[in-house]
């Protein structure tokens, strides 16, 4: 057997990788993080509102730390558009008035500062971070992953690989563990970032994210079920806007450059945008990326393994994005911690074989939130409203998925997670409240 360079190599310093690396390093494992960008997060594109459950049930050190958050989010405002005008609003999902200064349903963040902050914490814990290095292949010996090959041709050997490379799955495919996500499961999102004065954002968006929904003839979004709403997420002194469409729909593979631009052009004519936003915003960035949002809805995608001999997959690489709410950061964090825990046990036991590592997949399946999030069909089922051509049906379904009735299906998994944490340590309740307060101060 050849010597190893590290106990654990983590590929990717996005949202998941540093969380796994920190935990491994704290357990005394020699841990290397490889990141192909020159700065962590510079190649991560996201909308990005991280829901509260990521912070409550994710890594304690994020919860109790001072991460670079942009703005607390206290609710969702759904706008319904017809003939270029907002004709109805559903803002039933929000923190009730008196608590809105204390609680939040999520926080917006920029990926570069946030992932940099995460990676710095991993390095503080003893992990080594190498940036500007892409892992281009895996070292395989008798069917087991033994390390990676870098783009500089260097062979780095490890006892266990944690693959946090995101949606493209290059290494996991090379290791023969996964295949590419099917195009019906992957959404391409085109994102605009606008500068906007804080006072204007406070007055117009406040602390709520905005979704704009419409029937297909309006042409401001992809056909219902085959894309997202138009999202506007308020940051500190900017807003993020996203329109997305799956790479394949009922009519095959769309001409996305044309379609997405056309949606934006039409949306910029909608009365609310024209009157409230257009005079007060200045375009700063135009960026795009893919996310495997429906991976959990297709049996063949969902049943792909999340581990192999010598390797564990986390986050987008493991297909853990939420199919309706479209958040992937919480599951990246949850899976990162479970993968690290499994890695620590495996190295202690001296067994990194697939059968030992299979406990990781079991943990994912038994997690109180992950299975519920990745199998939520509300977004895809919006297609029923399109097929029926009934606007009332669209509003009813939006209310179920992004209005107050969201509580109906989110409450149980969240309560299960609360119960699990409280049973471990009842004082966690105080930590949660402290977190909301501290984040509020971080923002102010």
């Amino acid at each position, binding site marked *: 057997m050849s010597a190893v360079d590290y106990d654990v190599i983590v590929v990717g310093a996005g949202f998941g990788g540093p969380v796994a690396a920190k935990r491994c390093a704290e357990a005394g494992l020699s841990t290397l993080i490889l990141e*192909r*960008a*020159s*700065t962590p*997060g*510079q*190649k*991560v*594109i*996201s909308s*990005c509102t991280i829901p509260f459950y990521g912070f409550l049930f994710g890594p304690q050190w994020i919860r109790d730390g001072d991460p670079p958050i942009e703005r607390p989010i206290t609710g969702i405002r759904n706008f319904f558009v017809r003939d270029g005008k907002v004709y109805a609003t559903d803002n039933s999902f929000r923190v009730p008035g008196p608590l809105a200064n204390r609680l939040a349903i999520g926080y917006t963040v*920029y*990926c*570069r500062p946030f992932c940099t902050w995460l990676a710095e914490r991993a390095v503080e814990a003893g992990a080594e971070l190498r*940036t*500007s*290095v*892409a892992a*281009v292949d895996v070292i395989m010996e008798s069917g087991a992953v033994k390390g990676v090959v*870098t*783009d*500089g041709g260097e062979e780095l050997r490890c006892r266990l690989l944690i693959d946090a490379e995101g*949606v*493209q799955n*290059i290494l996991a495919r090379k290791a023969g563990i996964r295949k*590419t*996500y*099917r*195009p019906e499961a*992957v959404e*391409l999102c*085109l*994102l605009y*970032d606008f500068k906007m004065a804080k006072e204007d954002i406070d007055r117009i968006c406040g602390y709520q994210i905005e979704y704009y929904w419409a029937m297909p003839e309006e042409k401001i979004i992809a056909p219902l079920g085959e894309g997202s709403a138009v999202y506007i997420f308020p940051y500190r002194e*900017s807003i993020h806007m996203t329109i997305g469409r799956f*790479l*394949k729909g009922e009519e095959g*593979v*769309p*001409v*996305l*450059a044309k379609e*997405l631009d056309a949606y934006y052009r039409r949306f910029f004519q909608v009365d609310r945008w024209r009157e409230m936003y257009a005079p007060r915003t200045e*375009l*700063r*960035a*135009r*960026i*795009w*990326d*893919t996310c495997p949002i429906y991976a959990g809805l297709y049996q063949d995608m969902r049943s792909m393994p999340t581990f192999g001999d010598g390797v564990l997959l986390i986050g987008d690489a493991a297909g853990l994005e939420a199919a309706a709410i479209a958040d992937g950061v919480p599951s990246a964090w949850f899976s990162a911690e479970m993968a690290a825990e499994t890695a620590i046990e495996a190295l202690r036991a001296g067994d990194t074989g697939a059968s030992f590592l299979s406990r990781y997949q079991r943990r994912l399946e038994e997690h109180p939130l992950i299975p519920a999030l990745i199998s939520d069909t509300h977004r895809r089922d919006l297609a029923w409203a399109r097929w029926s051509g009934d606007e009332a049906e669209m509003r009813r379904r939006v209310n179920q998925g992004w209005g107050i009735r969201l509580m109906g299906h989110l409450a149980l998994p969240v309560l299960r997670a609360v119960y699990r944490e409280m049973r471990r340590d009842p004082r966690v309740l105080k930590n949660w409240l402290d977190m909301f307060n501290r984040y509020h101060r971080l923002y102010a």
Partner: protein
Amino acid sequence: MEETLRFEDIPGVEWVPSPRPFITIDASKCTGCGNCLRVCLAGVFRLREKKAEVASLERCMECASCLFVCESGAVDFGWPVGGTGYRSEWG
């Protein structure tokens, strides 16, 4: 100073050109279906004699849409050399 590229229609992003190409097309597998051209927002591909080919990687944001829609497995998608390719402060 490293050489960086910017484009007026894609503000907020800069590119350090990769010294090696990172997306290639296996002409023997390509069926000329054009899916890669349809989904690419960066104009990376063109069709020539009923086969797709890489025209320019200059604006590629490494999203891999081309990989996901290629049914014949002709698109080989890899990463630009570490530290190169696109980067943005606003993701």
